[in-house]
């Protein structure tokens, strides 16, 4: 075995070195190797002092074999060309044709499935007066199918001086080679490297190009992406955005270079060379040089306690209120229900809340592992979700008004006393309570959630279960109280009226959702959403009032097409600006660092249009004259971080403070690099207190 392999190795060497050629004219060299051919050409006839000439090196692998680009990807080797020539002669780095992807099992290589030509500039100094130019080329290039065969050798050739006119016999070779080079990109770009992913933003105007069907980035730089991982691309407000998976812990480059491939709708592939400065966001701690206070190290029992009490307080927050009115309705009817039924309903409600928390947190964790910088309340950053929630609210309201009866169990309080329905209703109320509760952050909740999201799964489940139990606890306890049940009035016609009355708070919730939807998706989409309310209401009414199959089919078609339309129009609208009120600047990491380096006092508030707690805080505290004057008198720059739509920069800052959601308030006193965190619920007094005592 060993003898054989040594012999084979020897044969390789002989075959590679046994070939050496001296050539004139423009075909400087052609070599036939075991698995590929190589040829060197010169574009001009002879060389001239003081000029730059171009050489080409063409590799032609055997069928099904491939050669490599300058970055070979996961495995392989870069073609190596070492030129030696007398003083006064300089060889530039080779220009590579745009690469192709070459998947090999679970790995990804970058290279060329067939012929590829590298272009090399040959610079002749002005004072080079020799009549002949002797060049030695040492080359090694790897040819692979699955197995790999390196090809290498050393060759000499001579070029004569001449008139340096273009050689017509190689015109095509050079023209083709130039056509395959990536174009320089005229777009500016920026890139951000996070631990588990990286992002490349190109400021392209979509109208500058034909419609793009695919975008793919070949990095020349290491540490940018996992070569074999899928690349994601999409248009956003700045242009084209590509997101890549990245190997955690790999070196963070300062500049990303590479080739971007854009496939257009007419089947053409365009290649652009890119170079983009990197914004290093791998160390969340260092995104604010201000050494943030990280609460992540709280003990588990404390996080659980925070979560339970946070959950209980959440009941008092404005967003959960409309749903609680539904729950109150069920309680009112408690008088005529058996003790067991009441308790079962209490548990069904708790279970509904718990399930929804688990669903949201499961989705959150999944999306995060996919690299999305999202946090608590992320689903409200999606206009589609907001739209669906609004539709749901209107449907529930219409049902309460008696336009139709969806079997949600809400009407269980009236004639429908079947315990089964009551259970489903309670479960549904739990789900609804959770859905509308997420935009609210109660005190104590934020540190608990921030802590949980950095922990392993079982801890996440534990903390969010505690939160769910906290939210459900008041009603669960009430369901066990006989005293409370006996206090409730006897059922009667008044219940129907109360039920109708409770439809109104649901509509108020819908108004808030429509407001958020309008900010996210724009007024056209909002008008369509309002239309959808009516059409869905109408189709449910049709279904209810007519028993004919045809009418039912029409109702279903109406319903489905409404939902489809909603899906289609619910896209983030970037043309409209978010609501502005107070004197503030937009938050960015750079702006913050700039202010801090000037030793200025800075107040930052992170907010979102869907975050009711934030809006209430702004209304009652931050936007008041009192607080605004305090900002002005103390020369405090106010920065606003808007998290209504997804924003990685803000997501990272929140994460660095152990938070996963808004509201979040930071105050850097004059000359301080360390921030003070303000509570989640603000009054003018609290804010001024923080501003003046620090």
């Amino acid at each position: 075995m060993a003898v054989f392999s040594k012999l084979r190795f020897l044969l390789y060497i002989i075959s590679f070195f046994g070939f050496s050629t001296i050539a004139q004219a423009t075909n400087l060299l052609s070599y036939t190797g075991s698995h590929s051919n190589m040829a060197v050409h010169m574009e001009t006839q002879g060389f001239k002092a003081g000029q730059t000439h171009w050489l080409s090196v063409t590799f032609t692998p055997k069928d099904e074999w491939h050669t490599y680009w300058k970055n070979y990807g996961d495995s392989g080797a870069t073609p190596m060309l070492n030129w030696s020539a007398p003083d006064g002669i300089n060889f530039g780095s080779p220009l590579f044709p745009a690469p192709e992807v070459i998947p090999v099992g679970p790995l990804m290589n970058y290279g060329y499935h067939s012929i590829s030509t590298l272009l090399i500039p040959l610079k002749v100094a002005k004072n080079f007066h020799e009549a002949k130019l002797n060049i030695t080329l040492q080359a090694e290039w790897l040819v692979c199918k699955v197995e790999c065969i390196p090809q290498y050798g050393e060759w000499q050739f001579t070029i004569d001086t001449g008139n340096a006119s273009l050689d017509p016999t190689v015109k095509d070779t050079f023209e083709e080679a130039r056509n395959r080079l990536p174009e320089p990109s005229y777009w500016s770009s920026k890139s951000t490297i996070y631990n588990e992913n990286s992002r490349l933003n190109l400021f392209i105007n979509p109208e500058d190009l034909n419609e793009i069907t695919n975008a793919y980035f070949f990095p020349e730089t290491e540490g940018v992406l996992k070569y074999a991982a899928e690349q994601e691309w999409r248009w956003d407000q700045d242009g084209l955005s590509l997101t890549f998976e990245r190997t955690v812990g790999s070196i963070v480059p300062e500049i990303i270079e590479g080739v971007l491939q854009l496939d257009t709708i007419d089947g053409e592939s365009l290649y652009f060379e890119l170079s983009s400065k990197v914004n290093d966001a791998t160390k969340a701690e260092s995104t604010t040089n201000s050494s943030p206070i990280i609460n992540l190290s709280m003990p588990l029992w404390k996080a659980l306690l925070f979560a339970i009490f946070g959950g209980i307080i959440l009941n008092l927050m404005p967003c959960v209120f409309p749903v609680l009115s539904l729950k109150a309705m069920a309680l009112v009817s408690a008088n005529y229900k058996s003790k067991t039924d009441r308790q079962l309903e209490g548990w069904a409600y708790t279970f509904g809340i718990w399930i929804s928390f688990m669903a949201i947190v499961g989705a959150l964790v999944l999306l995060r592992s996919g690299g999305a910088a999202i946090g608590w309340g992320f689903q409200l950053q999606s206009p589609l979700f907001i739209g669906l929630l609004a539709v749901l609210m209107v449907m529930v309201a219409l049902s309460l008004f008696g336009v139709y009866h969806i079997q949600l169990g809400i009407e269980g309080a009236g004639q429908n006393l079947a315990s089964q329905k009551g259970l489903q209703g309670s479960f549904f109320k739990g789900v609804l309570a959770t859905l509308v509760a997420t935009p609210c952050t109660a005190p104590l909740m934020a540190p608990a959630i921030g802590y949980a999201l950095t922990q392993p799964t079982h801890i996440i489940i534990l903390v969010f279960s505690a939160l769910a139990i906290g939210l459900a606890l008041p009603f669960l306890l009430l369901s066990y109280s006989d005293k409370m049940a006996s206090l409730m009035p006897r059922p009667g016609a008044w219940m129907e009226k109360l039920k109708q009355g409770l439809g109104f708070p649901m509509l108020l919730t819908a108004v808030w959702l429509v407001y958020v939807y309008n900010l996210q998706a724009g007024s056209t989409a909002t008008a369509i959403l309002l239309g959808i309310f009516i059409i869905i209401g109408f189709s449910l009414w049709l279904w209810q009032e007519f028993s004919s199959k045809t009418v039912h089919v029409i109702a279903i078609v109406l319903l489905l097409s409404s939902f489809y339309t909603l899906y289609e129009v619910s896209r983030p609208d970037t043309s409209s600006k978010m609501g502005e009120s107070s004197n503030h600047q937009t938050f960015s990491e750079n702006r913050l660092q700039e202010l801090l380096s000037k030793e200025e006092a800075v107040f930052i508030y992170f907010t979102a249009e869907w975050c009711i707690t934030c809006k209430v805080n702004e209304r009652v505290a931050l936007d008041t004259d009192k607080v605004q004057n305090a900002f002005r008198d103390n020369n405090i720059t106010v920065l606003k971080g808007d998290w209504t739509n997804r924003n990685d920069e803000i997501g990272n800052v929140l994460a660095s403070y152990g938070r996963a959601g808004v509201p979040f308030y930071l105050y850097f006193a004059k000359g301080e690099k360390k921030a003070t965190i303000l509570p989640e619920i603000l009054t003018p007094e609290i804010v001024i207190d923080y501003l003046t005592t620090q």
Partner: protein
Amino acid sequence: MRKIYKLTFAVIAVVTSTFTAFSSPVIDKPAPTFSGIDTNGAKISLADFAGKPVILEWTNHECPYVQKHYNSGNMQSLQRELTEAGVTWISIISSAVGMQGHVSAEQANRLTTERGAYANFVLLDENGDIGRLYNAKTTPEMFLIDEQGVLRYMGAIDDKPSAQPKSLKGAHNYVRSAWTAFSTQTEITPTATKPYGCSVKYAH
């Protein structure tokens, strides 16, 4: 109610599955633990070597880049040097059945004898599990794990991505320099490099 139970399980399954397969090699983090059968039929796992530094070497005797290091004796001298200094050297063959470099236990042992290799263990990883666990991409590809099981170096064996034996002259051996820095308790630089060579022959 039954539907609700089903939903619960689905949710729990989604949440837990997200976090299970999350170990990949990261410098200064615990190296992924693995166990496998060596060419003498013994079951070995990374945990067995706690208290000893470990080198993992991905290899494929038919790969020209591996051949450069073995036919020149370069790999063996590094193996000898490090194992004598107390390192446990594990060579891993992740070539799938029918792919280049796939060997039986007997063939692997014969290769060790013929080439005079100093590896303490040769692991056969024909289903590629250990290779994938370490994101091993090329042969050769090297990993240095310290006594605490923490990954200290990963990547290429040296800075000459060539298959020619003459490239060994003047090559900077990253593994040797990582080991020297580690054993003298100075900073290892670089801690990670881009490996070069043949692709690991995983099943397609």
